[in-house]
């Protein structure tokens, strides 16, 4: 029952995030006759990013995206595996996140998933969800990305921009 509630919660949050993303960049697009454009949700596991290869892959990928896309159409979620996080621990995580964002010049907003709503993704480690051109096109990739996955994502993003 609890699992079911969690799953519903998770789905609701995911839906809300997508709505938020659509609203953030969607008004101008709708008036221009484009209903949907690719958007990204970065699901970040800070421990995962202590792994050099994952960190480099993540960082390199972020740098390959157009700054306007990162600012307008990308959301980050910091997955926290710890349960019952107290205020002190949250402050530590916030500080680490601050350092991470600063050193990698990350400009998209990152939310901290305090309640473990995205836990179902945590087994994949740091990953990204790409919402493609059509409403039915939603894909998930894990870092480090394979070369063909990276070009697939970039192609989708850059094609749409053209």
């Amino acid at each position: 029952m609890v699992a079911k509630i969690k799953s519903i919660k998770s789905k609701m949050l995911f839906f809300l995030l997508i709505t938020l993303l659509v609203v953030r960049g969607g008004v101008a697009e709708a008036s221009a006759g484009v209903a949907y454009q690719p958007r990204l949700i970065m699901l970040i596991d800070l421990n995962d990013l202590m792994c050099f290869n994952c960190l480099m892959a993540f960082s390199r990928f972020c740098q390959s995206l157009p700054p306007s896309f990162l600012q307008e159409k990308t959301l980050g979620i910091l997955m926290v595996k710890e349960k019952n996080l107290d205020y002190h621990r949250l402050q530590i995580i916030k500080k680490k996140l601050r350092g991470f964002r600063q050193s990698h010049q990350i400009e998209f907003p990152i939310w901290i998933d305090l309640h473990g709503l995205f836990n179902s993704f945590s087994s994949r480690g740091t990953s990204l969800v790409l919402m493609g051109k059509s409403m039915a096109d939603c894909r998930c990739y894990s870092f480090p990305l394979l070369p063909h996955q990276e070009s697939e994502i970039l192609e989708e993003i850059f094609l749409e921009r053209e």
Partner: protein
Amino acid sequence: MRKVHWLSFFFVFFLLFTLSTASSAKSLRISLREEMTLGHLDDDLIYMWVGIAVDESGHIYLTDTLDYSLKKFSPAGRLVKKAGGRGQGPGEFMAPREVQIFQNYVLVTDQNIRGIQVFDRDLNFIKRIPFSHLILDMRVCGPQAIALIPIVGVGAGRLKIIDFDGQEVTEFFYEKTKKMMLDFASICSDKEGNIYLVFTFQDRIEKYNLQGKKLWTNRLLKVKSVSKEKINRFEVPTRVVYKDVTLDPVGRVFVLGGHYSKHQSRDIYVLDAQGRYLTTFTLPEESHAIYIDQQGFLYSRGNDGVSLRKFKIIYQVD
């Protein structure tokens, strides 16, 4: 009469024996008094420190892996200078690790870049000491000698001593296992240049002279073998026995325990220079490393690496 004589002889003998054992069994107790905390939750001084060195004047040098930097702090804890940045160029880091003071220089290793970067005490980049492998641990062990544990792979366990130009002075094997990562170790050095080595995934604390002769081994925790996990094709150890080793100014050996300690990553075992166990004390917070400076202050991690804690060590002999 003779019986009384013998009895008094035994009594005197017993008395002397008891007194002598009592005097030699003096126990050492260690407690800590916090002197300073560097980096708080609301500032941006430290994000995740890894390596530490303190010079003779009390200046603190830290590597910060989250912002790819080397930082110098005044003895009072003020940030004096920050160097580095992400990259592989001169003075840049990909994953800065160990830091050591060597003559008038500051040496820094990087987990993902070969060689040692050399900075002056003002953190200006000077040069890179070439080295053929990535470096697991590094300690200065004499006026012209730097001890390194290279990451070589299976069948490693090799300690290399190089000079300031990267020329090999000597090398010796401390472990010849073919099992992955069982040679991983932390090192420190005393004034005579002897090397103390604690194994990350084995219950072994050892002392070697510079010629590679093993002087003693101690196993404090009675760990036979550590638990392993299969990652891809490889079976790797996952639980740490000993995390770090450092010496106090009189040469006592301080060893930070890992997952097998009663207080994980907090218990510090103290041995004398001959490897005899003296005492155990416990840090207030988990740490990945410990360091004792020339004045005898102990440094450890606070707030999961966003703070550095400095303690005065208080020794008590009972």
